[in-house]
């Protein structure tokens, strides 16, 4: 199989700016992207830099961007990549932020590791130093953490996160999925402390833009987005949710659905923001002028409101504050 690789090349010590180098390779059908990078380095251009270690999808070192998708090079079949993107494959570092590129495909992941460290990614418990047996838990309880435990901290999700793109302070999907790994573990004794931690670091768990990018790229099926949703639920369950715009927005949906069946968009903003709602006035006026705002007496109601109210009454698991 003949494949053209366009590989990002940048040596900050000698290059003014990055460029792409083209390599045409003949590869076996069962090869992976790491084989191609190795072939380039060993047979064509020894100056190419990239990280690699285990070659078995465990260490996370070889994470790179392939045609816009963050992947593990050692886990990405060339055949499948060609089927997905065509016979020209573009290989780039996880981020092209010039300050982070050390050389070619190797980046400085300090920001990623710092955030991982902030959430205390280890079990906190009184542990017998000389246990006579393993600390076992029931399979059903293990299932709660299983996916989250698969995280290998490769950074694929973090460097695809749209929240991070706009807000460097956001903890990001990996650190939050890691937090959930322990808040869902019955052997951990710091659930509340962890939830308070992620609830107060910046705007913490509430800054996720819900783009689902982390789910799409995670090579281990961790589904960090859903773990962030579980953290949202846990802060309500444990009573550590601060009353802020985000928490009021989430619970405001129940108020609105209870009243109308559908959402009262205007009132939801007012409920979430309180007096601060005035900041939306310029947009609200322009929307009103274009017939895009329903006034309270025009607000439509669902024709199935009775059923909806009954379902809320019997199904709601969290208590409303107001």
């Amino acid at each position, binding site marked *: 199989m003949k494949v053209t690789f366009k590989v990002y090349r940048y040596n900050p010590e000698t290059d003014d700016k990055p460029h792409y180098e083209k390599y045409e390779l003949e590869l076996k059908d069962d090869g992976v992207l790491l084989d191609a990078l190795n072939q380039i380095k060993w047979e064509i251009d020894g100056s190419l830099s990239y990280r690699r270690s285990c070659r078995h999808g465990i260490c996370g070192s070889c994470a790179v961007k392939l*045609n816009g998708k963050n992947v593990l090079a050692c886990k990405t079949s060339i055949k499948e990549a060609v089927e*997905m*993107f065509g016979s020209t494959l573009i290989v780039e570092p996880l981020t092209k932020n010039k300050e982070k590129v050390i050389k070619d495909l190797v980046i400085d992941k300090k920001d990623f590791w710092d955030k991982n460290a902030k959430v205390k990614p280890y079990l906190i418990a009184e542990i017998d130093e000389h246990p006579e047996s393993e600390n076992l838990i029931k399979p059903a309880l293990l299932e709660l953490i299983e996916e989250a435990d698969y995280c290998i901290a490769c950074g694929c999700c973090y460097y695809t996160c*749209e*929240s991070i*793109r*706009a807000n460097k302070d956001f903890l990001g999907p990996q650190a939050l999925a890691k937090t959930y790994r322990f808040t869902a573990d019955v052997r951990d004794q710091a659930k509340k402390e962890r939830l308070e931690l992620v609830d107060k670091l910046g*705007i913490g768990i*509430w*800054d*996720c*833009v*819900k*783009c*689902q990018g982390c*789910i*799409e790229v995670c090579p281990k099926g961790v*589904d960090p*987005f859903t773990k962030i*949703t*579980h953290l*949202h*639920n846990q802060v*309500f369950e444990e009573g550590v949710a601060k009353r*802020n*715009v*985000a928490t009021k*927005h*989430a*619970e405001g*949906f*129940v108020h609105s*659905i209870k009243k109308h*069946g*559908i*959402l009262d*968009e205007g009132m939801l903003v007012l409920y*979430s923001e309180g007096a601060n709602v005035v900041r939306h006035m*310029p*947009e609200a006026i*322009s*929307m009103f002028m*274009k*017939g*895009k*705002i329903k006034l309270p007496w025009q607000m*439509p109601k*669902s*024709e*199935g409101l009775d*059923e*909806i109210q*009954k*379902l*809320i009454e*019997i*199904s*709601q*698991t*969290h208590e409303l504050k107001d």
Partner: protein
Amino acid sequence: MKYALYTGCTAKESTPELLKSTLAVAKVLGIEIEILNEASCCGASHLQDFDEFLSLVLNARNICLAEKRGLKLVTLCNTCQLMLENTKQKLDSDEEVKAKVNEKLAEVGYKYTGESKIQHFLYAILEDVGLEEISKHVKKPLNLKVAPFYGCHIIRPSKTHDGANLNENPFKPNAIESLIKVLLGEPVDYAMKTKCCGFHVDLQNTPVSEKLTASALIDASESGAEMMVTPCPLCHLNLDVKQKAAAKEANKEFNMPVLHLPQLIGLAFGIEPKELGLHHHVTPVEV
């Protein structure tokens, strides 16, 4: 051909032009529409943050409304699509959860069976009508450079959408481009077309939302687009209504018309702009 239309809340409130244009286009394509006026809000990817189970129950009921009619459930909003499809997948793959949800639904006379397919209008017409048939209705070729803006929840996570979006590649989607082409417009390719508009953090972190909106508008403008089109009313609200705020955040100037997908189709079909609700846009659309 008949659809059970789940309008979502936005098409009944802040984007009335979306419902209007959908109905106009459906009429031309010979699609009968039954609007699910008994439906509830899907929770817009926020309700589950507060109460996951309640979100499942309410959306299961929404799906039941289409099941009862024996029709395909068609959505107009990316986020509604994701919420409903997520619910379907959870119930179809977990008998225990399905039983718990059905226990609640039984109290109001429903039973979720999983028989109805859930599909966004974009993919529903591609599957049921097809590009060739759509092309036959083109009376006014677009002759414009149009930038597709997919929005997140219609393409990601791909494992959830499975066959509902006809196995679209989330990193290289093609549905909107193929439609623009048959409407005789020119699709603009740009990196931000699959990125996030920031809508879902607009209240809690407005600068983040505006930055993301601005980056999409900048990329589309610089790529030569004369207008943008989106299948998601939430993306539309950010790109159209918040365009001025995003411009201020980015210190740029924009004047980018942002159309709902059915509006773009309707224009090419020769439907009157007023019938498509173009006058409802905050950023003017001149055609």
